[in-house]
């Protein structure tokens, strides 16, 4: 009846920790991982033949501990397996990129641990080629061991910008500048608060010292307002804390405005299902608290599954305390990096600003749909405005479209991103050829491997 007791979706710290705890309770577990190796975005492993980039000792240790714990158990690893969602019958669907087919598995419980999504605020020009997320640049460095080439500008807000800059510097191509909307040096008191979180502080100092030593400009209290393509490259218009505007030119721009939980299109958590599997969300996709908390939250999810499916009674109290602590640390970081000047409302964006990058839909398209009298629902805006209908299924635009709708129709019940996206599979565009050759996965003949110690 069941192919596995537990399917864990995502092989980052949360997924690995969940698999360990479920396997410890004697449950059969498979991990679905879209990449060729485990690690997730945070512990992304280099592609074959590439030396790993320098990571902090603490981060290396954390990953080594997770992997060594995992090797103690029999856990099925399905690499190159892209999660497509769960169908109406409760089947877990994934595209096996190796085999080129879609496969399905039936499990008693599913732990969804697909990681956070990076927030990027819409700005004129953010859709131009050469503009990406800073997190995307970081993952690329981890995989290829090479920094993004030519003049790179990092802009937005948050500690990740400094981390990406430091990694670029160590790989030999310092960014032309880091543009930071907040001013983490602005409040001594908040800064001293970091002393309570020595791990966080050590990472931050290490990155910061690298940036300072390379004399990379870290322009705090400054916002990247817009990007234009000119003959000399991508011209960014920057506004400092006093409102003074100036431009800076680069060949690539990495944007980053924080990370957030990810529930885009995912099956909601379900503990008490009359039919269909138990579904638990774990790690940054449930609450974006960073790598340490993700592993803890994964362990919590694994133990919860064990309690629900077996007679196990392992406690999660200590994990709860750890999560409270990590939540405080993240709140402090958010406070340190809060923008000096409040961000402009989305309704002030120029009308030709792209909101939906897949279908090229603009802020003006949305303005024209929100009439003065009849107030369309999220779903109607989706259909008639073609927002959240493209290949990314609304991951990029739905949050912004919902936020702008709420600005434009005050007094009406708020619209949420999920009103536009819904909950459906496939989560990503999927080969029709693969879907026509689908069959329930044959466990016996499948190339499924026990974790081996060489990983």
């Amino acid at each position, binding site marked *: 009846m069941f192919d596995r007791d537990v399917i864990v979706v995502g092989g980052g710290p949360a997924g690995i920790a969940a698999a360990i705890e479920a396997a410890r309770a004697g449950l059969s577990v498979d991990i679905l991982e879209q990449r060729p190796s485990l690690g997730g975005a945070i512990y992304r492993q280099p592609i074959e033949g590439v030396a790993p980039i320098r990571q902090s000792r603490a981060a290396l240790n954390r990953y080594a501990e997770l992997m060594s714990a995992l090797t103690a158990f029999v856990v099925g690893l399905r690499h190159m397996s892209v999660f497509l969602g769960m169908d*109406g019958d409760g089947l877990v669907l994934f595209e096996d990129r190796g085999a080129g087919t879609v496969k*399905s598995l039936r499990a008693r419980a599913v732990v969804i641990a697909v990681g956070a999504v990076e927030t990027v605020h819409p700005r004129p020009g953010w859709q131009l080629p050469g503009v990406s997320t800073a997190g995307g640049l970081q993952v690329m460095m981890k995989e290829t061991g090479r920094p993004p080439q030519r003049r790179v500008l990092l802009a937005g807000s948050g500690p990740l910008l400094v981390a990406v800059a430091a990694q670029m510097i160590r790989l030999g191509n310092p960014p032309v500048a880091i543009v930071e909307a907040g001013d983490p040096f602005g409040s001594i008191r908040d800064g001293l608060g970091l002393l309570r979180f020595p791990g966080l502080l050590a990472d931050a100092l290490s990155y910061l010292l690298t940036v300072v030593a390379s004399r990379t400009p870290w322009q705090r209290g400054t916002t990247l307002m817009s990007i234009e393509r000119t003959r000399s490259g991508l011209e960014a218009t920057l506004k400092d804390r006093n409102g003074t505007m100036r431009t800076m030119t680069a060949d690539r721009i990495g944007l980053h405005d924080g990370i957030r939980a990810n529930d885009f299109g995912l099956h909601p958590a379900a503990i008490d299902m009359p039919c269909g599997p138990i579904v638990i969300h774990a790690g940054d996709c449930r609450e974006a608290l960073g790598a340490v908390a993700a592993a803890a939250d994964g362990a919590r999810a694994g133990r919860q599954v064990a309690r629900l499916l077996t007679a196990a009674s392992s406690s999660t109290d200590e994990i709860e305390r750890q999560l409270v602590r990590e939540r405080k640390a993240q709140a402090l970081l958010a406070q340190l990096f809060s923008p000096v000047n409040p961000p402009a409302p989305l309704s002030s964006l120029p009308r030709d600003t792209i909101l939906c990058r897949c279908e090229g839909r603009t802020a003006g398209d949305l303005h024209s749909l929100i009439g003065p*009298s*009849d107030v369309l*629902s999220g779903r109607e805006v989706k259909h*008639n405005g073609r927002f959240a209908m493209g290949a990314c299924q609304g991951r990029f635009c739905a949050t912004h479209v919902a936020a702008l709708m709420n600005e434009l129709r005050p007094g009406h019940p708020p619209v949420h991103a999920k009103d536009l996206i819904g909950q*459906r599979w496939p989560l990503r*565009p999927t080969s*029709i050829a693969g*879907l026509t050759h689908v069959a329930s996965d044959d466990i016996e003949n499948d190339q499924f491997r026990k974790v081996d110690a060489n990983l």
Partner: protein
Amino acid sequence: MSAALAGIELYRKLARDGLFADVYQTRSSFIVAASDAECALLETHATALTSVGVGIERLAGERLRQRYPVLSPNARLAIEVQDEGHAIGYKIVHRLLTAAGVIVERASTVDRLLVDHDGYVRGVATEKGVVLADAVIIAAGNGSARLLGLDGVLRPRKGQLLVTERAPALNAAMPGAIMSGRYLLSKGSQAGDLATRSRGFGLVIDPLGTGQFLIGGTREDSDAGQSNDLAAVSRILADAVSLVPGLAGVRLLRAFAGVRTAVADGLPLVGALPGLRNAYLATGFEGDGICLGPVAGRAIAQLACAKHPAFDITAFDPGRFAGIGVAA
């Protein structure tokens, strides 16, 4: 059939008048047969279409390959049905609402009709309060059953549909929607064996204006309107690829599902509600609502305004079901 023709005629008029100018398109659709059984059924269907004045062309062999080059070699016979209409439902709804200047009270569930003892309907009670009106028109799909106590008359009939990514070259090579001859089998089953057939498949591949394809679908006796299952999606896509092999190289963008409202005898319910002086019903189109919605809506509006409906709705009279009335 005559209702469908009246529906298309209204679309054409509204397109000429400008209201639907950019949201209604005339083009052919193609019904394709791949087996002896389908060929026989298709010949019968072609005769029926001709007899009511629909322009068709019978395509086979080299002529079929020329007219529809991306069709699988398995296709043996096709009937090109000319001058068919094409419109996207949500666009039509949005256009009509905007043109009428109607304010929709969204997220307002109607609990019941407010009926005086002489059969006059004063309005409706909603969760947000009472709304008074001179006439009440119920067009609530499957929800109409609860308001009217239509036990056993309406049945939810789920459909699963698929949308692909853009594939402009393949899309441009398709002169219209194609339908598997098997769709006729599936659709024909709706009236008689509602109780016995739990899930039917019929294939329609519709090249959309965006360069995408809409591929359908199922007819299922189910009200699980939100969910798509792998078995159905895989089956629909396999059927689609066997008719248009080029689709194998395209990606599926999304799957979605909805619930049609089916009537026990297979005909819609359009007309005055028996026993009530000023209440009307329009539902039960079971997937033909895009075609019939505007013409039925106009007829109901005419009835409500004490005019003679411009379209004969006697066959759709809700009074044909005994016991239709208002739940206490």
